[in-house]
């Protein structure tokens, strides 16, 4: 564990120095955690007055006394999905960068020639991806809650966040997603010498998240705690499978003989 922390400590310093990783994340975070929720809450009145919107809300939620509160709950469900963007995006940027960088500088062989265990090396790389993803998700969770609650209280005189669903997304679903993406990124990066192709995976894995947002906006379904827990269960079952694959990829002999090197 100690060795994994050493890997994590060194790599996190490099991540912080790498603007191409954290600048897009910062931009996405500010946009989805502060600007969009702020605009949505401020524009709530005009949305509620729109007869089409009122009809849509009635279709999704059924009859409701307070269309503004129903609309706000609908918007919150969208932002809850946005919370999953960071755990999906960040590992798909960090994990390939970390592995391709090792390949570029030929540091893997001297590194695995130290007494470090391959499980510690894998854990160190995983922490480098997951810790920032979870930290930023947590910050976003707090920021959205503050923005929505402050503006929502002014408008509706009520606190709308956090809901149990938000806790499930933040503390259960987002770590599971970032773990899976990290493992998949590591597996793909072992076969790639080009950082961009390895990072291209990020775009692919974010697609299902956009699909859920689209389906919700289209009124096809609404995510509730039941769906979220089911999602956690299904994805939780995927975790040991991707971990097993990643451990196989991280075998010393595999690294030296099967990984595609520069």
């Amino acid at each position: 564990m100690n060795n994994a922390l050493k890997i994590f400590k060194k790599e996190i310093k490099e991540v912080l120095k790498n603007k191409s990783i954290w600048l897009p994340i910062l931009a996405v975070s500010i946009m989805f955690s502060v600007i969009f929720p702020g605009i949505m809450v401020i524009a709530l009145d005009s949305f509620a007055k729109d007869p089409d919107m009122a009809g849509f809300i009635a279709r999704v939620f059924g009859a409701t006394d307070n269309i503004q509160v129903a609309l706000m709950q609908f918007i919150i469900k969208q932002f809850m999905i946005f919370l999953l963007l960071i755990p999906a995006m960040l590992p798909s940027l960090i994990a390939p960068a970390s592995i391709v960088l090792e390949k570029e500088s030929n540091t893997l062989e001297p590194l695995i020639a130290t007494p470090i265990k391959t499980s510690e090396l894998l854990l160190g790389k995983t922490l480098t991806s997951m810790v920032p993803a979870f930290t930023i998700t947590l910050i976003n969770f707090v920021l959205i809650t503050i923005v929505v609650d402050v503006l929502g209280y002014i408008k509706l005189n009520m606190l709308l966040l956090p809901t149990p669903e938000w806790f499930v997304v933040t503390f259960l679903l987002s770590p599971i997603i970032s773990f899976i993406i990290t493992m998949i990124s590591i597996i793909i990066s072992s076969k790639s010498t080009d950082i961009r192709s390895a990072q291209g995976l990020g775009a692919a894995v974010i697609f299902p998240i956009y699909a859920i947002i689209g389906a919700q906006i289209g009124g096809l379904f609404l995510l509730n705690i039941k769906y979220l827990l089911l999602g956690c269960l299904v994805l939780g079952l995927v975790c040991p499978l991707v971990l097993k694959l990643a451990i196989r990829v991280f075998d010393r002999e595999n690294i030296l003989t099967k990984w595609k090197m520069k």
Partner: protein
Amino acid sequence: MIQVENLSKKFGNITAVDNISFEIKDGSIFGFLGPNGAGKTTTIRILSTLIKPTSGTVIIDGKELSKNGEYIRSILGILTETPGMYEKISAIENLNFFSGFYRMEEKKRKQNIEKFLKMFDLWERRNALVGTYSKGMKQKLAIARALIHEPKILYLDEPTAALDPESAFMVRSFIENQKNEKTTVFLCTHNLEEASNLSDVVCIIKNRIIKISTLEELQRSKKGKKIEIVFNQPALKYADFFQNFTEVTNLEAKENKIYFSLDNPEIINPAIIKKLVDCGAEIVYFNEIKASLEEIYLDLIRS
């Protein structure tokens, strides 16, 4: 320190290392020579527990390789074919990072970092990013990394490649000094002069072991010993005289010297000398020229 018995490694249908056996004594320097693709790096990787052998046994420091990977890696230092340093952090950060995986007291670790950076003239630039270093500086830093935990065994893969003559000399002196430190050195090199000057035992490999012995034994065993005769007069007039000796090959006359090869000089040389003296030749020197490692190596590899 290292005992290798019937070691083989196959990658699919390709046999990289074919049934090799050798023993390396504690504190000795073992020169490992061979052409590209001869299995040198594969052997180092097996001995470093980085890849598993297909068959055979290896015992290092009394411990079986396959069951003691972590221990074996903790007592060895390795210089890989390429320096392999993190270029976006400084030299001192690199050494701090790598040395952190070995059990060492913090004070000793810091002392060693300073000692080796100073030894390899890198102390002044210890805080500069390694990416700004020259090839030679990176190589020296990689050697410092291999030594930082004072390993019992040192695997050096082409240690002086990419170094300027002064740095190469420094590294060679350093390797020689390892004998005093009782470090066992496994020296993989293409530089035959380096191998012959430093190694106690030389092993020539081309997937399987072609020859393994001390340099003196190799020289003694070489067929066709080269003889040099230095005359007090021009040598050319004695060249025809050697046609009487059918055992003589590769005859060459240059100014006052004659060179030739013989398989059995102990028998033929006295007769040659007698005949030459009888013919009035004034012989200044009569020498056996010892074969260089390069000649022996090329002979063995070609055969």
